C-alpha cells in the first residue's frame, strides 16, 4: 500500500521499510565505487597491468611480484583511506544537517573540523620534532572535535533544536579557524608546507596504518549511526512535533552531534579537514534516494567515498609530477558541481 516502498519482514521481529529507489541506487553507487577503486589502482606513473592489480588485491604480500607489491603498499592504502574518509565526512555532514534542519551543514561549518585541527596542531607543536603515532593523533583530533562540539552545544543549548545552532557553529568555526592560522603562521612549526597542505586536506601522506585506523573507526561508528538513526525522521518535522511523537529530542540531538564529531575526528587526524564532502554528498544522496534519513545517510556515505576517491586520484595523476591535494581538488571541482546541481535543481522545480 505504500507508494515506492518495500517492507523487508522476518516474522514479527523485523520489519524495515526500504524505498525502491534506494534498492536501485545503492547497488549502482556501490558498483561505481568498486569500479572507481579499480581505475584508481590502475592510475599512476608506472604503467599498470590488470594482472598486477589482481595480484595486489588477491594475493598475500609475500607472494606478490614487485609491481603488485608497489600497488598494495602505496596505492591501495591511499585508495581505501580515501573511500573511508569520504564516507565518514559525508556521514558527519548529513547528521549535522538533520540536527540543524539545514541542508548546508557540514563538519567544516559547525567548527568540528577546526576543533580537530587545533588539537592536532597544538599536539604537533608540543611534540616538537618527535613524530606522533596515528592513533594518538586520532585521539587528539577526537578530543578537539568533541571539544568543539561540546562548546557549540553548550553555547547554543537554548537554540539546540532550531537553526540557531548553525550560527553558533559558524562563529566557533571562525574563531577556531583563526587559531589554526595563528599556529600555522607563528609556528616555527617544523615543516610549514606539510602542515599547510594538511590543513587543506590531503591523502598524500596516508599509509596503511592510517587506513587501518580509519577502518576501525568506521566499523565502530557506522552501526552506531544506523542504530541511533531511527529518530532522524521525526526530528526533520521539528522539535515540538518530534517530542510529541515520542523522541527525546535533546538527547537525540546531543547524540548526533557527538557522533558527527566522532566521524570527522579520525579523518582530520589522517587526511586533514577536507571540506565540502559532507555538504556535496548529502545533496547528491538526497536527490538520488529521496528523504528517508537512513537511506540518505547510506547513499551519502557511498557518494562521499566516490567524491574523495575521484578528487584524490585526479589530483595525483592529472598534473604529474605535481600532486594537487584532494582538499583543493574538491574545493575546485566540487563547488562547481554543486553550483551546477543547485541551478539544475532550481530549474527543474
Amino acid at each position, binding site marked *: *500500500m*505504500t*507508494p*515506492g516502498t518495500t517492507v523487508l519482514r522476518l516474522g514479527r521481529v523485523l520489519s524495515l521499510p526500504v524505498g525502491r529507489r534506494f534498492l536501485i541506487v545503492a547497488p549502482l553507487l556501490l558498483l561505481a565505487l568498486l569500479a572507481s577503486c579499480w581505475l584508481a589502482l590502475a592510475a599512476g606513473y608506472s604503467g599498470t597491468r590488470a594482472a598486477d592489480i589482481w595480484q595486489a588485491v588477491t594475493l598475500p604480500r609475500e607472494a606478490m611480484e614487485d609491481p603488485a607489491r608497489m600497488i598494495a603498499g602505496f596505492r591501495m592504502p591511499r585508495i581505501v583511506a580515501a573511500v573511508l574518509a569520504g564516507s565518514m565526512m559525508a556521514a558527519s555532514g548529513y547528521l549535522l544537517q538533520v540536527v540543524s534542519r539545514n541542508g548546508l551543514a557540514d563538519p567544516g561549518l559547525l567548527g568540528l573540523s577546526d576543533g580537530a585541527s587545533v588539537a592536532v596542531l597544538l599536539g604537533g607543536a608540543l611534540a616538537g620534532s618527535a613524530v606522533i603515532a596515528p592513533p594518538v593523533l586520532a585521539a587528539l583530533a577526537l578530543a578537539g572535535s568533541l571539544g568543539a562540539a561540546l562548546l557549540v552545544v553548550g553555547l547554543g543549548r537554548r537554540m539546540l533544536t532550531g537553526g540557531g545552532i548553525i550560527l553558533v557553529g559558524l562563529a566557533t568555526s571562525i574563531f577556531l579557524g583563526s587559531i589554526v592560522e595563528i599556529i600555522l603562521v607563528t609556528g616555527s612549526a617544523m615543516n610549514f608546507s606539510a602542515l599547510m597542505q594538511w590543513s587543506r586536506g590531503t591523502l598524500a601522506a596516508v599509509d596503511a596504518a592510517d587506513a587501518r585506523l580509519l577502518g576501525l573507526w568506521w566499523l565502530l561508528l557506522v552501526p552506531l549511526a544506523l542504530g541511533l538513526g531511527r529518530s532522524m525522521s521525526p526530528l*526533520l518535522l521539528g522539535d*515540538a*512535533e518530534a517530542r510529541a511523537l*515520542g523522541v527525546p529530542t535533546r538527547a537525540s540531538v546531543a547524540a548526533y552531534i557527538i557522533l558527527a564529531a566522532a566521524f570527522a575526528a579520525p579523518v582530520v587526524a589522517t587526511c586533514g579537514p577536507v571540506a565540502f564532502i559532507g555538504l556535496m554528498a548529502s545533496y547528491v544522496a538526497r536527490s538520488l534516494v*529521496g528523504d528517508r534519513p537512513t537511506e540518505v545517510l547510506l547513499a551519502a556515505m557511498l557518494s562521499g567515498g566516490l567524491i574523495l576517491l575521484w578528487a584524490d586520484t585526479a589530483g595525483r595523476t592529472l598534473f604529474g609530477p605535481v600532486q594537487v591535494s584532494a582538499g583543493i581538488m574538491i574545493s575546485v571541482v566540487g563547488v562547481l558541481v554543486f553550483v551546477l546541481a543547485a541551478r539544475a535543481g532550481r530549474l527543474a522545480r
Partner: protein
Amino acid sequence: MEQPRITVDGVSFGYGGPPVIEALSLEARRGEFLAVLGPNGCGKSTLLKVIAGLNRPSAGRVLAGGEDVSALSRRMLARRIAVLTQAGSPPPNMSVHEMIAMGRYSHQSLLSRRSREDEAAVARAVRDMQVEELLGKRVGALSGGQLQRCRMAMVLAQGSETLLLDEPTTYLDLKHQFGILDCARRQARAGRTVIAVLHDFTQASLYADRVAMLSRGRLAGLGTPEEVLTEEMIAAVFGVRTRAARAHGAVFHVPLGAAAP
C-alpha cells in the same frame, strides 16, 4: 468513580516572564470532547503544550491516566497523548505516506520499523481523514488544507487514547472543517479523549461535550456549551456584545459590536 484520563491540577506556566497560565485546574474523561476557547494570547495553546508535557509547569502537575506526565518517558507519553501542533513545517521532500507513518514512532523499535499493526493503524488513519489520493505526493506539493488533514492522519495513526488538537480547523474549507471535527467526535465516541482549541462558538457548541473558556491564563468558565457560551461570558471574555440564539442544537452568537469597557 472512573479516574479522569487527563487531570490538570493547579498548573501555572510562564515563558520566563509573567505567567501565561495561572493556577488552572480541569479534568477530561474517557469519551469526552472538550473544547478550549478564549481570545488570542489567553494561553490556549500553552495549556495544550503543558498537558502534552512539551512545557513543564512551574507549579502544579498534569496527570495522564493517573500518572504524572513529567515522570513518563517521551515514548510512553506519546503512546498516551498525541498532539496536532499548530504550525508544523515538514521538509518539502518528505513523502506524505512517510509523514503519516511517522505517527507510529512510539510503537516501533530498532528492528521493527513497519509492523503489520503499524500498517493497519496508518491505513485506518488515512481512511478516517480521506487522504488516500494524497499518499504518493511530496509534502511540499500539498495545499495548506491538505497538509493539515495529512498531519491529522499522522496524529490519528499514533493510536493514543488522548488527542490534543491545536486549532485543527485552520487552513480548512468548510467541508473539511466539519470532516475533521466529525472525525474528532468519532474518536471521542470510540472511547478516546479529545481536547481541542477552537475559535468558532457554533462549532464548539455542536461538537463539544464541555467547553473550557480561558481568559488571561485563568479558567473563566467550564461546563456544557449552553452553560458557558452565554452573552455575559462572551462580553466579559472577548469584549464583544452579542445576541445568542439557539437552533438545531447549536448556540449562535450574532455580534453587535464592542462591549462597553
